[in-house]
């Protein structure tokens, strides 16, 4: 019995164990389940459309809007300042390419409430921080911001500010999305991210 035969047997056993395991080289959640659950059940992970409208109007540079709809839908209109990551391609890409910087708030939105909330759990589970959802999605954005009209008798100062923001957001949204297609494509190209490369090898 020589050492080669013993070593071969050991490697073979380990190889068979590996072949039977459900291994996969693709991404998996890295955050502990209980920690992730308490993060995503917190009410602090939502923004209302009015809050998002304020960010847009003030051109807040500490937020990053991420549109989860298809590229086609994104092209026809989107909230000014968004980047497009179709939900079903979310896990094909390296999230660090579009999740901006460490202190940036990433706000996900889709048409409704499903895709954006699926996505926020995924990125949070992969270990990225500061991820939020625009509650109600674009449906809510349209019914609140785009179709906003004041119906009442007397307007308070707070309401006045709110409606002011809504109207400015609506104007900006319409202006930017009414641009001719060629200009839009140019603007979107300038917001294209390059994947970050890992350090290594002999280079």
């Amino acid at each position, binding site marked *: 019995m020589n*050492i080669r035969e013993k070593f071969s047997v050991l490697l073979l056993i380990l190889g068979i164990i590996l072949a039977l395991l459900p291994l996969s080289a693709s991404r998996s959640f890295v955050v502990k389940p209980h920690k992730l659950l308490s993060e995503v059940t917190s009410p602090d992970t939502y923004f209302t459309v009015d809050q998002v409208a304020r960010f847009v109007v003030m051109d807040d540079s500490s937020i990053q809007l991420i549109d989860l709809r298809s590229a086609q839908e994104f092209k026809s209109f989107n909230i000014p300042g968004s980047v497009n990551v179709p939900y079903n391609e979310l896990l094909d890409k390296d999230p660090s390419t579009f999740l901006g910087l460490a202190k940036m708030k990433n706000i996900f939105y889709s048409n409704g409430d499903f895709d954006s909330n699926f996505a926020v759990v995924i990125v949070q589970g992969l270990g990225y921080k500061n991820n939020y959802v625009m509650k109600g999605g674009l449906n809510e954005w349209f019914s609140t911001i785009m179709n906003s009209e004041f119906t009442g008798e007397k307007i308070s100062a707070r309401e006045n500010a709110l409606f002011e923001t809504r109207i400015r957001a609506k104007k900006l949204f319409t202006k930017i999305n009414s641009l001719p297609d060629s200009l839009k494509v140019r603007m979107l190209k300038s917001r294209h991210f390059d994947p970050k490369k890992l350090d*290594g090898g*002999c280079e």
Partner: protein
Amino acid sequence: MKKKYMNPYLAGTMLGIVLLLAMFVAGRGLGASGGLKYCVVSIVGAVDRPHTENSVYYSKYFEGGKKPLKNWLSFEILGVVVGAFISGALSKRLKFKIEKSPKISSTRRLIFAFLGGVFFIYGAQLARGCTSGAALSGMAVLSVAGFVTMIAIFGSAYLFAWFFRKNWI
């Protein structure tokens, strides 16, 4: 009296664990040829600074005031030298000598060693890694590049072995 070498399977396991540690701690494999490149880049940078700034190749290593020697790969090969010295000292193998077949002269051995070095590192720069950086570390992460480089290195060495047999046996 010098000690015998370690059993190859045991030594291989040890090397594998070092490689695994590199992957676990730093998220990267091992490398050797890259370190040599950084030596050359910093020497050229010290001798002829304007040349490095104009060259497409060198300039990227000096961007933004970077120092090529303060680099993972440079420090790694420094470690290789120290680690091998420790091992050689423990096994009493420290000795100045030219290792060669008794059939060839020392000059011939040294000429071929020099040529071997030129070819090896030139190829390693082209393939972006040598036997350790591309083949070994590449295989350990299942990279296609690793397997292709490994087959190319060993395949061509077997092909050329016949022409150089007088140097070795």
